């Protein structure tokens, strides 16, 4: 844009005042959320069903629009996702934190002959992910605003379909319903990666689909076996209170492991993730990193632990070892990456290793830390992918070597990147610290060796993230970088990231807001795990006495 004569065009366009407009927009957005929360608090409507089906309805509306009217499509998608978020706010304001029971429950018969119900509800474990899904979708819409130009209609429809099914996954309390959402999500996600992704998108999309599908169908077998062992019922609450024989638990654990470990992804089955994350468009990466891979960890929390408590206890050491391998392996691989997105993708493997380590430590700190770290990872890695997407839109390269000295050209951008880099490392004051700290405490309690090994992962984590930051933003300015039209962040892009910045510090400074949501539920889960084994021992003693 006419910087032929000037080698460096640091000036931001004066006419736009993106900073000023952002500063003006933030309070407006905050007010919107505040009043939204106030209004929705007292409105009597079925919260969960509404936020599951409103985006799906939105997707249908988008699909019915005229293809040429891109502006209308984009605005509809944005408004639908915003309204969904506002409608989800009662989950925050009206949530009863003192109980481990399911809340906002809706229940009605769906398929009578198979005793399948439409049964949804949230507890302290799932509620935060519902809110995070609703929030991240808005950001996915805004970050794609200018970068998606091909088949816009299908793109935003897919995005909204994904939102609906994501929320459905976290809310389902009927196994069949859960499976429907879990699998249905694959279709729009497959399209999102395959149609709007990077150069190698087709391969990545099909790899993603087949990996997850193989895992899921094995889980389906497990689900059906569980169904027949629960008196032909898919009711998850009932399953959580049924004590299955130990051998059956072990087999089912592996069946569910197949699905969840692929999603997380845990060490041996993680290979789809770098491809999928790297090739997906920014919005796709955010959903993958932010929500989709959390569904795997959520699956462990929701199914394996309460339904198969003895098997979970018996296999916890195995899981923890796999987690530690993922932590270190993922981190070491990051050190050798040349591609920005690939590096962040592999760091996800490492970070999700922390999550599963915390979960399978099977103690209060570990579980809480694991759940919080799921949230943190969604926020931080989501933000990092958003940031990479933003710069990719300008430079069309993801190679770290093509950057260098970007801090001089993109000051606002590099500041935001810094915040999330530090959060990813786990600097005290950011959310990453709280999560990793709790996980390590839990990990040490469970096993000293694994705790120490996991802690090395934190160090390597700092090494690759800082190395990345240094090579992209500091060092000598890369002349190739200046050939692009490098505008610093616009208002839309800043507004996309500011909610996440707020969350980084909110969780980092006052995590209790979020931890208090899960206290009761996590305690309930722990009680379940601890009591199940004892009941069995008692049963065995009784058996012997007979």
């Amino acid at each position: 844009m006419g910087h032929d004569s000037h080698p460096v065009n640091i000036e931001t366009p004066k006419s736009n005042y993106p900073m000023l407009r952002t500063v003006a927009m933030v309070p407006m957005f905050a007010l919107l959320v505040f009043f939204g929360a106030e209004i929705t608090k007292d409105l009597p409507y079925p919260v969960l069903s509404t936020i599951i089906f409103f985006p799906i309805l939105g997707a249908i509306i988008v699909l019915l629009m005229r293809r040429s009217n891109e502006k209308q499509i984009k605005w509809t998608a944005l408004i639908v996702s915003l309204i969904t978020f506002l409608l989800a706010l009662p989950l925050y304001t009206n949530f009863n934190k003192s109980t481990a029971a399911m809340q906002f429950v809706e229940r009605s018969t769906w398929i009578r002959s198979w005793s399948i119900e439409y049964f949804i509800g949230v507890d302290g474990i799932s509620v935060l992910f519902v809110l995070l899904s609703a929030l991240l979708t808005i950001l996915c819409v805004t970050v794609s605003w200018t970068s998606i130009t091909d088949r816009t209609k299908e793109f935003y429809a897919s995005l909204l379909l994904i939102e609906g099914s994501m929320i459905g996954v976290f809310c389902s309390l009927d196994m069949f319903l859960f499976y429907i959402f879990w699998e249905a999500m694959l279709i729009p996600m497959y399209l999102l990666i395959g149609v709007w992704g990077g150069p190698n998108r087709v391969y990545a999309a099909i790899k993603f689909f087949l990996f997850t599908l193989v895992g899921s169908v094995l889980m389906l077998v497990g689900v059906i076996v569980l169904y027949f062992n629960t008196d032909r019922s898919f009711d998850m609450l009932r399953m959580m209170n049924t004590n299955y024989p130990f051998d059956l638990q072990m087999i089912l654990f592996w069946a569910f492991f197949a699905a969840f470990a692929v999603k997380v992804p845990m060490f041996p089955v993680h290979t789809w993730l770098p491809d999928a994350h790297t090739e997906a468009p920014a919005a796709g990466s955010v959903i993958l990193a932010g929500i989709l891979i959390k569904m795997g960890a959520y699956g462990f929390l929701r199914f394996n632990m309460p339904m198969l408590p003895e098997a979970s206890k018996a296999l916890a050491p195995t899981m923890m070892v796999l987690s530690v391998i993922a932590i270190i392996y993922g981190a070491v691989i990051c050190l050798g990456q040349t591609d920005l997105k690939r590096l962040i993708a592999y760091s996800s493997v490492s970070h999700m290793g922390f999550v599963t380590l915390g979960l399978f430590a099977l103690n209060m700190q570990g579980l809480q830390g694991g759940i919080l770290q799921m949230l943190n990872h969604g926020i931080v890695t989501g933000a990092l992918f958003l940031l990479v997407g933003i710069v990719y839109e300008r430079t069309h390269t993801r190679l770290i070597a093509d950057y260098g000295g970007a801090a001089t050209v993109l000051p606002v951008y590099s500041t935001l990147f810094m915040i999330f880099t530090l959060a990813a490392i786990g600097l005290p004051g950011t959310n990453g610290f709280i999560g990793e700290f709790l996980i390590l405490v839990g990990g040490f309690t469970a096993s000293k060796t694994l705790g120490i090994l996991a802690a090395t992962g934190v160090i390597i984590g700092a090494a690759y993230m800082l190395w990345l930051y240094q090579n992209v933003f500091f060092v000598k300015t890369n002349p190739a970088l200046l050939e692009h039209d490098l505008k610093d962040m616009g208002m839309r892009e800043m507004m996309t990231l500011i909610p996440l910045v707020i969350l980084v510090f909110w969780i980092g400074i006052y995590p209790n807001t979020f931890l208090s949501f899960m206290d009761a539920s996590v305690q309930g889960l722990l009680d379940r795990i601890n009591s199940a084994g004892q009941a069995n021992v008692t049963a065995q003693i009784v058996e012997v006495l007979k």
Partner: protein
Amino acid sequence: MNIPFPDVTPVIPEIIMATVASLLLLAELVFANKKPLGYTGVVVSAIVIYLLPLCKGEAFGGMFISDDFSVYFKMIFLISLILTILISLKYLQIEHADFGEYYSLLLFSTTGMMIMASARDFILVFLGIELMSLSLYILCGVKKHDPRSSEAAMKYFLLGAFSSALLLYGISMVYGLTTTTDIYGIASYLRQTPPTLPLMLSMILIIVAFSFKISAVPFHMWAPDVYEGAPTSVTAFMSTAPKAAAFAVLGRIFFTAYQTFEPYWTTILLVISVLTMAVGTIMAIVQTNIKRMLAFSSIAHAGYILIALIAGTNEAMNAMKVYLMIYTFMNLGAFGIVILLEKGENISDYNGLSKSHPFTAALMLVFMFSLAGIPPTAGFIGKFYIFMAAINAGYTWLVIIAVVFSAVSAYFYLRIIMNMYMKPMSETVGTTPSLGLAAALFISAIMMFAIGLVPSIVLF
């Protein structure tokens, strides 16, 4: 001697179908435009569907029975017939194969299937099969000027005749040993005798004969060639209704006549089922012609349906019916799209379809995901029901094999979607839309979601 006139109420649907088919043959001479004949077929089939539940009972001394089982299957045949006629109307004109006999033969073939579903006597089974097959042989060759079509007809005829001979041989052996062709008579005889070698042989011959009809491995060789060569509308029909008919007979024979032989035929079918899934899935991956791919896909689906037969419970029989119903809709939908696209036989012809024809591509996407068994489409419900029934019957390991193949099979369905959505357009493919075709596609697509979300509509 005064022979009372039998109560023909249960046979009324078949009588109507056969009469209308014969009348269509006559009307064909009068009408220059053959479309009204097709519409007549649609209307009559719809009326017969309505009549079916009203005509339950036995006729001809128990040779013919119209029960829930057969009524459901007859509905499948008739739905398949209606959709086939709807997708044929314009296609035949384009292919210059616009003969009035086409519709008549379709109706005759369906009548044969309806007799098969209701037959409780081996003689009647054979009659039904021959009526169905002979009509289909001719239908395959309806594109007279196309050597591939004639080749398909010839191949289908030879192998079909071969399998009929095997079936007859099996039937005659059973008759020789048990002195009856009545399925219940055979059942009560077999209950009192230990399984002897000739009896086993007769059972194996019958299994082989029907394996040809459902194109189960290793008797599937004809399917890809015939499916490829036959007119696409006939392929669509052949891949759904006759298969369902063969499964209906298999279900009835093995659950009544050979019930006491269950351990033996389960073992044989187990091997056939696994082979069928494996060969169907793996061969479909390497196909470049979509009709051949769908042929192998339908072979793989036959493998899944066999699981229901193996499980052998009432629940499994219901699962089989439901699966075939769903399969009929999704397969006919997929073939409908193949017909909609001019020269859309190569998989690469689908490149970039989502850009040139977004709506067609979206419909195909639905059918492909349904065939792959991904929720919330109907295909998932079908698979789920079969797997559930099989696990309940204790065949968990078979189901694990099946789900793995089903996951692998997603690959070749995804390949079509990949071509449509993720590859650049190679050349613009024209479409040949027509009202009938559109109606068939809409019905199928809506059923995909309707059954997928409210399965109760097909669970009865």
